[in-house]
Structure formats: C-alpha cells, structure tokens
C-alpha cells in the first residue's frame, strides 16, 4: 500500500476492483465504511461476483474474469476524451511530456521489436529520445505526436465503451457509470483510492492490470495524496516483510537485485543499477545503490567483505535466468532436476496450480523438509487419499522430514503489514511438544553444514565459513539482535563532510541516510534502517495519537522508509509546494523547508523551483505512464485474453493471449478449450477461512465445513443442478466432486453477443485438519504465470460442470 489503512477514510471514491476487501480484509474494510459514513465517499465495486463488498457498494458493475485491462484502458480513454484529468499534475509529475523514440510502435497486439523466432521482444525502442546531455527530450505542451501523452491517447483509443462492453460483458451503461464516478476525482482536492488484491495479480497479465490502474491514478492526480494511492491488500501477515527482505529468487534485502551471469564483477553489476538522472536536477535516489549494497555485504560477511574482493561480490549466487520462481522450480522438479526442497510454513500441494503435476514433482525429490506449526498436505503428498490424493507410497522414494515450529503466539519479532508498518509482537506461551522456532531450525541446519565444511571441505565453502554469526546464542539468535542487524550500525567512526562525528564505532545507524559505501557501515536491509536505532525498538512504539485525525498515527510502530506513512507525498502539493487539497495536506513548502504531518518523501530542503520531480526513485523523477522497458510485454497495458478463454481476443485474434506469459512447453497439452470446457472458472477465499490453515481450527471448520462451488441460477437451471446437489467440476487437468451452491450473485454475461457463465470455487479444503476432506481448487487451475511476476493464473480458466452422484461414504 502507498497509503495507510486508516487513510482510506479520506477518499471521495473507493474503487474495489481485483479484490473483495469486505470478506478477505474485514477489519481493514472498516475504513471504507468510515469513508462512506463520514466523508460521503462512493464505493464502486467491479467484480465477476456480487461479493459482500459489492453488497454495500454505491455502484456495482460485473466484469468477465481476465478482462480488467480492457475495462481500465476504456476508463483512460473516457478520462482523456472528457478532459477529466488533473492537467497540472499530469504535465509536471508524470512522463506525459517526454518524447519516445521513433522506432516505437504497436500493431495487431504486438509492440515494436517482437521476434517470432526468439518469442521475445527487443525492447530498445521502448524508450525516450535523448538530447546531447543524455536527458530525455520533452514537450511541455503535450502536443508532440511521439510524446507519451499522445501515444497513450492513441493506444487507448480502441477501447470505446462499445468495445469494452463486448470484451468485458459489462453493460455499457454500467461501465459509463463507473467512469463518471472515477472522473469526479480529477479535481485537485478529490481523491480515489484503489484497493486490490489477488483478483488482479493472479492473471497472465497481472502486473499490467495493476499498472493500468496506477496510470488512471496518475491521470487523476491521486498518487501521493490523502485518500488516494495504489493499495495492494496483501494476504499473509508478513508477506510484505518477506518481499521487502528479498526472499524471492532474484531479490536481495531492500529491493536490491541478485547479480546475473553476465555481471562478472561489481563494476559490471553497478552499471545498470546506480542509474543517473534522465532529466536535469533529479534526486534519482538509486544513485546511492552502492552504499546499500556494500553495507549489506558488510552485514553478511563482516571482515571477509573488503574493497579488494569487491565486497565479497562472488559470494553472491548469480542468475542465469530472470528468476527461479515457484513455477520454474516445480517444472524443474517435475523434470527431475531438483533433489531437495524445504517448505517453511508453506503448503505447495494446495497452493500451486495443477495439483497432479505438483504431486508428481514432489515424488521426484530425494528429500523434502517441511517446517510448519500445522500438519500439511504437502508433508503427506505420498499418502493415498483416494480421488482426493491418489498415491502409492511404496513407489515414492522421497525422504520426508516434518519439523514442528512455533506460531505467532510463541515468539517475539516484527511483522510488516500491508501499509509498510513494522509492528513488534511478544511471545505469550511456549510452543506445544518439541516445536522449535524457525530461527532455531535454520540455525541448526546452518551450523551443521558449517561444521561439515570446516571439517571436510567441499564446494565453495567461503560464504558459509565467513557468514557473520556473532550472536549471543548462536543456536538460536535473538529476534532483538537480528532486528538490530537489519537496522545496521557503524563499524568504525563515521563523520559528516565537515568532519564532525556522526556515529561512533558500534552505534546503531539513525537511518539509511548514514550509510557509506567504503565499508564503514553494515546494514541488513536499508529500507528498514531506523527500525531499531539508538532510540531503541521503534517497531514497539504504541503511541496512537494522530495529528488532525488524518489517519497517519506517525508514532505507532515504524513505517518504512524513514517512518514515512504516505509514499510519494511530495505529489500531494502542486509544483509550487502548495497542497492540492488544503483540507488534508500531508506536506507543504514553507519557504525554506518541506514540513507537515508526514515525513517528506523528498529532499527536505529541495526548493520547488528546482524542478526536482516527486518520484525520487526514478531516473526521470516523474511517474511513468509509459513504462519504458520495465514491463516485459509492453510499455502500455494491452488486453490479452487469459491462456484459457471462452472467446478469442476481439482486438487481435492472432495474438489472443499475452505473448510473454509464463508458459512451459510441457504444460500446453494440459490446456483445455471452450468446446469441452465452456465455462469460466475462478477461485477465491471465504471470509471464514484463511488459505489452508483455518481448516485446522474447529470454529472455522464448523462455520464452513466442506468444499463447494458457486454456480449462477441460470446455468444451474440449464444443467438441472439444484441447491446443494453434488456436482463434478472439471478442467483439462482434473476434477473436483463437491456440493453446488446455486446463487444469483453470479450471472451470465454477454460477451460479443454470447452468454458466458462463470463458476466460482473457494480454495480452502484438503485432506488434513478438522474440516471435511476436499480436493482443493488447484486440481483445476492451469500452470500459467504472469509475464512479469510469474503469479499463477488462478482467476480465469476453463471448466465444465455436470451433476454428479453423491460420493460413496
């Protein structure tokens, strides 16, 4: 989230699209109710189902799963056509005025540079035209035919209300009703907040769904302001933290990235990272990349990281592919290329697409380690549970270890919430039985490995032998010590440019502004620096006072970066430094410095007339309506059908699906077509359950005891399916037998004149826990990923449904 949960109350329009906050994030959704009751906000919901969020909406529009970009591009076309954009914001704070290279183009669903042989793009034309000083050329009047604004206008021109209605199945008047409400927030003092979740990410075009909405927010001037923002409602309690700390194939803490094969030394690595401003006078904060990197290496490897060895650069593994994400990992496992796998609090047999393939892949492992507080399906993948998990244990040679762990109530530590707050929590009791903390288990594995490498040697032992491990209790380092390590400290005396001592050796860093690239500082995660400085554990702060009751609570816990609560808040004021919304200002220029109720997301002394852009992490200082080469399938979002779709792409049938979607050759045979699987399947969570955990809790298992599908009344009638009847829901990958809940919340939509039915499948059941056994929705879902983030396409695929006999007890 760019903003806080409570800040949602400042919105004038709340758009929930790509999520179902009332059911999935109920206690956060209270701030939408607050906005409706006290700020007269309008709640707009666009969703294939009439969800509980929709039931309290002021305006609801249905949409066919997987067509959000057509809808959002249509909104952009509407805003531009009606002039309902915040012109000064767009002209000054976005790259609308920058001029794109001559070679850029778009035709028949493909952007310039596509090579059918390589099945990839040469993205060099997706960039700005530069002047002699290396700065991007601009046309402040936005009239140049190749300026970003002109190209955007041209790109979205095809998305007329008629076309949107044909693709999305949304009635034209409903679509226009949504556009009108969104357009009201183009006024400088009005804001729209976008609340989304996996309803947008779990598509082969997931990242572009979110980009499209972010572009709308920029056109409306709603980024960086109170009641605005792009608010990703994150699922797990510390999924934000795990992402921030870089527990992803290609990441390092604080959004630094792992080296690639071609980057043979630190010099080569830095060439593409510490980038320089693309417009005169920009902050371009990644210019400090080297400080973050060197301080991380010092934190990890201490004295073994020196200037002479490029700060132990070679200790880092290098990537030969963009990333070994979950889909690639299980594809490799399925091909017998992975021998060992550790699942720490993770249940892939239930979570990942095409369960049959996941089960087969796990069976090819030599060893599997499952660390979890709860019994999991993954740890029992080799057990035979009939149709729900067919297996022959005698033929499965995987050695499986189950290691019991503590849960939230049994440990100290911090979790980062959806709005970037690091909140400390305390242990209330010991864990049951012999359960140990994940810290103790990871330390146990590491220390045993290190001892063996010390004694016997082996493949490249250096990073293992030299990893910093100066903890008071090396078998189970304390969360407090680890938090201080994340914050960082001075290794030697650190002085400011005038020679005054900033930090004595050993002192905790105040924040990342004190980082050095000469080895004088160590810092585990630069964006978290400030979480535990000399003032103590700032994550444990519990002062809920809130200036002007504006929803920031700046002294509650710690918000990264620098305790800033609203990201990009420089954009909450006009170019001269005057707040766009005088009633809800965040920061303003007072003549000598930026001040306000939030920590400025800007150089505090940078004068407004310096033309320093508010988006300080970007080289141009401006937000990108045109993504340059940062999105693999194109610099603008384009509508592509899901990999399994009931209809061809109306705009370009030859390039129907995202050409850059993550698809492995072996999985194509498992895709189904509309002749056999005529209905759209989609998956989701229920408010009574959390993934596959709560089926272990009695109350939740009583509230929603058994697997079911939701089917619209029209389709149920057509198929002779009554309320509570048993049905068989199948895709080309498998089937589920469960009960049908016949509902009027799902209605057929007219797509290009033909009715399309959607069937919903909640995901929560398996064969462990207290609830009744189930198949799991991932029996049905395809092994397809988003082109940029490789998120599986769980929200749109093809299924068939038929009435079934009740299972034999």
């Amino acid at each position, binding site marked *: 989230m760019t903003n806080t949960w409570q800040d949602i109350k400042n919105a004038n329009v709340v758009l929930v699209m790509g999520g179902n906050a009332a059911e999935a994030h109920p206690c956060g959704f209270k701030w939408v109710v607050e906005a409706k009751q006290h700020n007269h906000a309008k709640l707009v919901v666009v969703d294939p189902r009439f969800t509980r969020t929709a039931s309290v909406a002021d305006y609801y529009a249905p949409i066919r799963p997987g067509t959000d970009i057509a809808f959002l591009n249509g909104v952009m076309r509407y805003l531009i056509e009606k002039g309902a954009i915040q012109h000064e914001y767009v002209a000054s704070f976005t790259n609308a005025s920058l001029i794109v290279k001559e070679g850029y183009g778009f035709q028949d669903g493909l952007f310039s540079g596509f090579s059918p042989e390589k099945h990839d793009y040469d993205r060099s034309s997706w960039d700005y035209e530069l002047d002699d000083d290396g700065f991007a050329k601009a046309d402040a009047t936005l009239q140049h035919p190749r300026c970003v604004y002109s190209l955007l206008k041209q790109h979205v021109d095809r998305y007329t209300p008629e076309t949107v209605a044909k693709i999305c199945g949304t009635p034209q008047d409903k679509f226009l009703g949504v556009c009108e409400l969104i357009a009201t927030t183009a006024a400088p003092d009005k804001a729209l907040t976008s609340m989304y979740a996996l309803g947008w990410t779990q598509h082969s075009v997931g990242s572009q769904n979110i980009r499209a909405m972010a572009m709308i927010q920029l056109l409306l001037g709603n980024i960086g302001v109170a009641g605005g923002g792009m608010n990703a409602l994150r699922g797990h309690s510390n999924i934000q933290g795990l992402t921030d700390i870089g527990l992803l194939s290609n990441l390092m803490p604080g959004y630094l990235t792992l080296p690639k094969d071609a980057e043979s030394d630190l010099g080569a690595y830095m060439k593409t990272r510490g980038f320089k401003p693309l417009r005169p006078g920009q902050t371009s904060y990644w210019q400090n990349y080297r400080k973050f990197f060197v301080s991380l290496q010092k934190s990890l490897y201490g004295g073994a990281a020196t200037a002479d060895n490029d700060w132990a650069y070679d200790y880092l593994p*290098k990537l*030969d592919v963009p990333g070994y*994400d979950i889909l*690639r990992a299980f594809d490799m496992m399925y091909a017998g290329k992975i021998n060992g796998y550790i699942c720490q*609090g*993770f249940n892939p047999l239930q979570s990942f697409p095409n369960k049959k393939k996941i089960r087969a892949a796990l069976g090819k492992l030599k060893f599997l380690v499952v660390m979890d507080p709860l019994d999991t399906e993954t740890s029992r993948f080799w057990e035979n549970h009939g149709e729900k998990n067919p297996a022959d244990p005698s033929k499965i040679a995987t050695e499986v270890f189950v290691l019991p762990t503590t849960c939230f109530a049994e440990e100290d530590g911090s979790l980062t919430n959806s709005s970037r707050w690091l909140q400390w929590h305390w242990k209330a009791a010991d864990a049951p039985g012999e359960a140990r903390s994940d810290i103790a288990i990871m330390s146990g594995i590491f220390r045993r490995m290190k001892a063996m490498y010390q004694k016997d040697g082996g493949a490249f032992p250096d990073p293992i032998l030299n990893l910093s491990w100066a903890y008071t209790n090396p078998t189970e380092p304390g969360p407090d010590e680890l*938090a201080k390590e994340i914050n960082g400290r001075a290794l030697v005396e650190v002085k400011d440019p005038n020679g005054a001592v900033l930090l004595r050796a050993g002192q905790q860093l105040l924040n990342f502004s004190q980082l050095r690239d000469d080895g004088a500082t160590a810092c585990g995660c630069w964006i978290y620096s400030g979480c535990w400085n000399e003032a103590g554990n700032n994550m444990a702060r519990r002062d809920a006072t809130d200036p002007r009751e504006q929803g920031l609570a700046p002294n509650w816990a710690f918000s990264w970066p620098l305790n800033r609560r609203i990201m990009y808040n420089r954009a909450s004021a006009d170019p001269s430094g005057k707040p766009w919304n005088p009633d809800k200002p965040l920061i303003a220029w007072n003549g000598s410095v930026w001040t306000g109720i939030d920590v400025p997301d800007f150089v505090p002394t940078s004068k407004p007339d310096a033309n320093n852009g508010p988006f300080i992490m970007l080289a141009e200082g401006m937000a990108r309506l045109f993504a340059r080469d940062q999105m693999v399938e194109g610099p603008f979002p384009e509508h592509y059908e899901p990999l399994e779709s009931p209809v061809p792409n109306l705009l370009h049938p030859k390039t129907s699906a995202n050409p850059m979607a993550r698809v492995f050759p072996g999985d194509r045979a498992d895709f189904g077509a509309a002749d056999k699987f005529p209905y759209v399947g989609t998956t989701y969570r229920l408010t009574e359950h959390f993934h596959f955990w709560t089926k272990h809790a009695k109350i939740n298992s009583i509230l929603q005891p058994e697997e079911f599908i939701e089917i619209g009344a029209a389709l149920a009638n057509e198929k002779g399916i009554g309320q509570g009847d048993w049905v068989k829901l199948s895709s080309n990958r498998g089937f589920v037998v469960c009960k049908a809940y016949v509902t009027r919340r799902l209605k057929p939509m007219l797509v290009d004149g033909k009715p399309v039915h959607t069937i919903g499948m909640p995901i929560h059941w398996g064969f462990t826990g207290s609830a009744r056994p189930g198949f799991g929705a991932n029996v049905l879902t395809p092994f397809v990923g988003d082109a940029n983030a490789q998120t599986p396409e769980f929200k749109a695929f093809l299924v068939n449904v038929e009435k079934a006999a009740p299972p034999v007890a």
Partner: protein
Amino acid sequence: MPGGPMELDRRSFVRLSGAAMAASSIGALGFGAAGEALAASVRPFKLARTTETRNTCTYCAVACGILIYSTGDRSKNAKASIIHIEGDPDHPVNRGTLCPKGAALLDVVHAPTRVQYPMVRAPGSNEFKRVSWDHALDRIAKLMKEDRDQNFIAKNATGTAVNRWTSTGMLAASATSNETAFLTWKVARAFGMVVFDNQARV
C-alpha cells in the same frame, strides 16, 4: 518495555474494579450470610489471573492488534497456557475488532493437528516415525551437503564465477517475522541457493 507485558494493564483494572463492585453491592444490599454465600458462588473473571501479551493476528496483512491472555505469571516454574485471544482496542487500525478468522485464533493455536515432534518418512514407507531433533537436523544437513557438493555450479560455460546451487530449493514462510526472514535469507544465500521463493504470488 512499551507495549510488552503491561505493568498496569487493562485486566488489572477490571480485576480491581470488579472486586470493588462485588464488595460494595453485596454490602449495600445487606443480605448477611446469604450475601456471603452468593459472593462465594460468583466465579472470578476468567481473565483475572492471566498475563496479557500484545501480539499481531497471524492471518492477513491488515495486521490487527490482538491481546493474548495466558495462565501463569511468567515465573520460571509456571507453564503458560493461552486461554483467550481478543482484539486490541488501542490498535489504530482494527480498534479492537477481529474478523471470523482472527476471532478464532485460539483454535489454531491449540489445533489438534499442531505437529508435536520431528518426524521422518523413509523412502517407500507408509508412515511417519518420530525422531529426535538431532537425528532430523543431522540427516537434513548431510543430505543438503551431499547435494550441494555434487551439483554446485561454481563457474558457467564462459568461466565466470556464478556460485549457484539450483538442485535444492526453498519456500520461505510469509507468516514468520522479519527477523526470521533475514536469518533465512542469510543462510539460503550463503549456501548459494537461487531456487527460492515465498507466498507473494499465491
């Protein structure tokens, strides 16, 4: 410690005021011996002798503040058991509320399917066998080292040092703390692991 086990906590207040109310109302009504019998029959508040701990709901990233009540007073010989969990009314986001998942947190803490001890399932076997921690961790470390030593890629075809290990992978847990996450990252990358992911996508 701000926000930790509280020095003057809400429950102490409830306990004191509850006791005062019982004493004063019975005295005022003047029921004598009958009143004493009634007072003896009044059960003390369930939470009156518990320890209160601030924590965060383990489910979604709204990260509602919760109060956990456990038996015992944290003394060395007292084994704490969690008996109640509710929303933290002081928390600026959830303001004391919890959803149907958070309200049932107690049931997941005490789920009958919590794993109690390390177990191993041997190749081809039809059952798990209980083992000691040392047995499990020694064996895991041995298997990992064997695989790493056999399959570690020190250099690629062009002779560049790439130092990656692709034949053992890991999924990290998105409900663990940042501190656990950082330690996990350190260990995984020191091994050279690149097949590494978390729940960000699912």
